[in-house]
C-alpha cells in the first residue's frame, strides 16, 4: 500500500502547526514555509494525477483497518483533478497574499494551510462522516480567513456566513445519522452497496437522508435557494482569501457529483437517480439568478461574487445533465471558472485600491493608475468569465451545450445558458466601460506608479489567466482526461470494488 495518498492531507496539516509555532514575528520565514508547502502540494497533486491517469484507484486504509470498518482515503481521477486545481489556485492566492495582506492579522499562513488541509481531505476521503469532519476543518479555517484583517462589514458578513454554515453542518449530521441508522455504515462505497440493496420499507428514509445531504452540499455550493450568503461574504473578504474561496463552492459541487454518481446513481435501487429531478432545474435557476445579480450589482466585488454564483450554476448544469459528456464538460469547465473568478476578484481589489474614495463602486470615477495594464487584464478576465472565444470558458460552455442536446430538457438548457451568457456579457461590458472609458481625468497628473510594484501585484492575476490560456491550448488532452474521469464516475462499481477489496488485508 503506497503511503503517498495521505501526503496531501498530512503536509498542510503539519505545515499549519509548524507555522503556528513560528509565531507572528517571523513573517518572512512564514511566507517561505507556506509557499514551500504549497509548491510541494502542487507536485504531489500532479504526481497522484499521473499515478491514477491509467484508471486505477489508490485506496489508503488508515491504520490498515479494512474498509468498511476503518476510514479510507481514495484517489481516483476526480480526486486528483480537484487536488491539482486546488494547489494551482492556492499558489497564486498565496503569491498575492505575500504582497502584504497576510500581515493584516495574525496567523494568516496557518489558517491558509489548515484551509488546504480541509480541502484536500474533503476531496480524498471515502467516508461520509470523515467528509463532515473535513468540511468542518475547512470551514473553521475559512471563518478565520474571512475575518482576516477585521472591519465592520467583514464582521457582519462573517457572522452571517458562520451562522448559515453551522446550520448546514447540523443538517449534514442529521443526514449522516439517518443514513447510519438505516444502513449501518458510513463508508461511501459500502453505503452505495447497502443503498442499492435497501428493502423498500427503508427507501423513504434513505431518500430523505439523501435529499438532506443534497441540501447541505447545495448550501456549500451556493445553489439557488441557498446562495444568499455568498455575495456579502465574498464581497467583503480580503483579495487573496476570496481568490482561494473560489474553490470553496466547488467543494459543494464536487460532493454533489461524488454522492450522486456513487450512491444515488442509476443502479441505486429504490434511491436511484434521486437528485436528477432537482439538480438541473435548480442549476439553471442559479445561473440566471447569478447573472441577474451581476447585472444589478453596484460594486465590482459584489458583481464578481454574483459571477461566482452564476459559475456554480453553469457547472451544475453540466453535472445535472447526468451523461458522461455532460460531466466531462463540467469537469473541464471547473478549473477554468475557478481560475477566472479568482483572477477577477484579485483584479477587482487592485482596481478598487487605485480609485481612491470611489473604491469598487460602479460609478464613473477617477482614472485608474496603471489603467492600461489593469484594463487589459480586465478585458481578458471578462472574456474568460463571460465564456467568450477564444478562451477555455467558451470550450467548456460549447461542450456543455453539445452534451445538452442529448437531454430531454435541451431547449431549456440552451435558452437559459445562452440568455445568462448574454446578461453576463452586458454586465461585464458595462462595468469595463464605466471603470475605464468613462473615467474622469484627474486635474493633476497621476503620480506614475512604480512599474515593478504594479508588476508584482498583477503577477498572480496574469498567472491565473495564463493557466486559463493553458487550459485552452491543452483542451484536447484535457477533455480526453475529463471524459475518462466522467466514465470512471459513471461506473461506481469500480470504486466500490477497489475500496471494499483493496483496503488493507482482511
Amino acid at each position, binding site marked *: 500500500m503506497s503511503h503517498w495518498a495521505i501526503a496531501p492531507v498530512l503536509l498542510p496539516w503539519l505545515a499549519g502547526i509548524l507555522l503556528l509555532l513560528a509565531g507572528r514575528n517571523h513573517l518572512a520565514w512564514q511566507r517561505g514555509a507556506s509557499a514551500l508547502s504549497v509548491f510541494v502540494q502542487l507536485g504531489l497533486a500532479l504526481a497522484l494525477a499521473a499515478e491514477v491517469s491509467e484508471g486505477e484507484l489508490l485506496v489508503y486504509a488508515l491504520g490498515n483497518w479494512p474498509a468498511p470498518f476503518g476510514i479510507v482515503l481514495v484517489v481516483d481521477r476526480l480526486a486528483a483533478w480537484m487536488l491539482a486545481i486546488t494547489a494551482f489556485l492556492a499558489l497564486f492566492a498565496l503569491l498575492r497574499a505575500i504582497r502584504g495582506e497576510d500581515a493584516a492579522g495574525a496567523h494568516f499562513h496557518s489558517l491558509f494551510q489548515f484551509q488546504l488541509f480541509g480541502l484536500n481531505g474533503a476531496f480524498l476521503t471515502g467516508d461520509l*462522516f470523515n467528509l463532515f*469532519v473535513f468540511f*468542518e476543518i475547512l470551514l*473553521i479555517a475559512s*471563518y478565520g480567513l474571512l*475575518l482576516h484583517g477585521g472591519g*465592520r462589514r467583514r*464582521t*457582519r458578513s*462573517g*457572522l*452571517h456566513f*458562520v*451562522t448559515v454554515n*453551522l*446550520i448546514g*453542518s*447540523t443538517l449534514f*449530521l*442529521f443526514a*449522516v*445519522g*439517518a443514513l*447510519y*441508522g438505516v444502513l449501518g455504515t*458510513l463508508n461511501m462505497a459500502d453505503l452505495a452497496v447497502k443503498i442499492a440493496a435497501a428493502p423498500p420499507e427503508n427507501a423513504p428514509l434513505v431518500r430523505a437522508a439523501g435529499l438532506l445531504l443534497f441540501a447541505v452540499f447545495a448550501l456549500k455550493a451556493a445553489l439557488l435557494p441557498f446562495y444568499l450568503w455568498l455575495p456579502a461574504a465574498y464581497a467583503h473578504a480580503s483579495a487573496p482569501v476570496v481568490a482561494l474561496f473560489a474553490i470553496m463552492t466547488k467543494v459543494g459541487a464536487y460532493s454533489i457529483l461524488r454522492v450522486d454518481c456513487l450512491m444515488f446513481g442509476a443502479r441505486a435501487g429504490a434511491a436511484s437517480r434521486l437528485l436528477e429531478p432537482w439538480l438541473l432545474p435548480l442549476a439553471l435557476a442559479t445561473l440566471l439568478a447569478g447573472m441577474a445579480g451581476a447585472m444589478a450589482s453596484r460594486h465590482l466585488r459584489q458583481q464578481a461574487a454574483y459571477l461566482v454564483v452564476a459559475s456554480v450554476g453553469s457547472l451544475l448544469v453540466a453535472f445535472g445533465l447526468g451523461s458522461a459528456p455532460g460531466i466531462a464538460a463540467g469537469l473541464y469547465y471547473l478549473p477554468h471558472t475557478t481560475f477566472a473568478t479568482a483572477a477577477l476578484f484579485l483584479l477587482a481589489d487592485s482596481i478598487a485600491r487605485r480609485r481612491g474614495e470611489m473604491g469598487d463602486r460602479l460609478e464613473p470615477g477617477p482614472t485608474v493608475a496603471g489603467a492600461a495594464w489593469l484594463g487589459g487584464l480586465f478585458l481578458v478576465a471578462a472574456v474568460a468569465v463571460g465564456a467568450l472565444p477564444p478562451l477555455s470558458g467558451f470550450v467548456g460552455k460549447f461542450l456543455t451545450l453539445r452534451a445538452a442536446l442529448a437531454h430531454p430538457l435541451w431547449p431549456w438548457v440552451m435558452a437559459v445558458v445562452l440568455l445568462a451568457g448574454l446578461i453576463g456579457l452586458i454586465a461585464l461590458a458595462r462595468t469595463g466601460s464605466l471603470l475605464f472609458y468613462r473615467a474622469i481625468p484627474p486635474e493633476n497628473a497621476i503620480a506614475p506608479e512604480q512599474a515593478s510594484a504594479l508588476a508584482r501585484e498583477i503577477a498572480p492575476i496574469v498567472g491565473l489567466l495564463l493557466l486559463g490560456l493553458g487550459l485552452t491550448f491543452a483542451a484536447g488532452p484535457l477533455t480526453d482526461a475529463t471524459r475518462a474521469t466522467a466514465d470512471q464516475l459513471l461506473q461506481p462499481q469500480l470504486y466500490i470494488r477497489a475500496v471494499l477489496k483493496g483496503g488493507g488485508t482482511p
Partner: protein
Amino acid sequence: MELLIALVIGVLAACGVYLALRARTFPVVLGLTFLSYAVNLFLFAMGRLSVGQPPVIAAKASGYADPVPQALVLTAIVIGFAMTAFVIVLALKARAELGNDHVDGKHEP
C-alpha cells in the same frame, strides 16, 4: 423510551430553529446550541437505544450497544463546542464593532 427520546429531539430542534431565526445574536447562538444538542441526541439514538449493554467485548454480555454512534457523537460534540465558542466570540465582536446586537447590525427602535 423511544417516544420520549424522539419528543426530546423534536422539541430541541424546534426550539433551535425558532431561536436561530430571531433577529438578535444571543438567541441565534442559543438556537445553534439547541440544534447541536438535538443532532447529538439524534446521532446517539441512531445506534438504537439500549440500557446497560457494553459497547465492546465483555465475557458475560447478552448483547452489545453500537459503539460507532458513540464515537461519532463524541466528535460531533467536540466540533460543536468549538464552533459555539467561535460564534460567541464573533457575536461579541460584532456587538462591539457594530454597536448593537442585531444580526444585520442595524439599529432598531
